[in-house]
């Protein structure tokens, strides 16, 4: 499990057929803002009709928009918040 405030990087990989981690945040660095409870089934397997099984946590991750986009136009403090399943997060 990750802790609130911990630095994380979104994995870079390319699942086939279904995913819920958009490409624009893969490989980006951010921080855990909150742990989403309760634990839930990964929606990427749910997409194939599996309604039960191993559960894990989604995390609300905070990523600065200037980290997401090179040449971001706006304020340096502007940010993104997105929920990411634990299997996509790496300590960084």
């Amino acid at each position, binding site marked *: 499990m990750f802790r609130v405030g911990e630095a994380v990087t979104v994995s870079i990989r*390319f699942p*086939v*057929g*279904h*995913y*819920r981690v*958009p*490409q*624009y*945040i893969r490989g980006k660095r951010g921080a855990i803002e909150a742990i989403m409870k309760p634990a839930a089934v990964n*929606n990427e397997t*749910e*997409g*194939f*009709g599996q*309604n039960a099984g191993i559960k894990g946590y989604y995390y609300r991750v905070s990523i600065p928009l200037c980290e*997401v*986009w090179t040449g971001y136009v706006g304020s340096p403090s502007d940010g993104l918040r997105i929920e990411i399943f634990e299997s996509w997060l790496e300590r960084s």
Partner: protein
Amino acid sequence: MNQSENLLKLLPNDIGGLPADRVERIDHLLEPWEKRCHALADVLDFHKIINTEEKRRGVEALGSEMIGKLSYYERWIAVFAIILFQKGVLTPDELARKMDVVAARSAANEPEKVCQ
């Protein structure tokens, strides 16, 4: 990444950050059948006959041409039919025959049966 590879790796609905037009504040009142289709989606999810995530996955599987050309609820009902075939709940032949019955009934100007 070559072109054909990217067709599989990038889902047609994964559009965050892509170039796009100015936002026009479009909206419309749902047609009665569109609202029924939305309610059907919810009820299918309640029973886990087709969960919400399966519907999303099914829409992606329609491919970018159909996603671009079908309306929102046209995509949903097409996906429900396909997933119900995959699960053996309905057969393609059964749905085709039922659609003929519904079309004939409508043509005869019978009032449509809504959930009776």
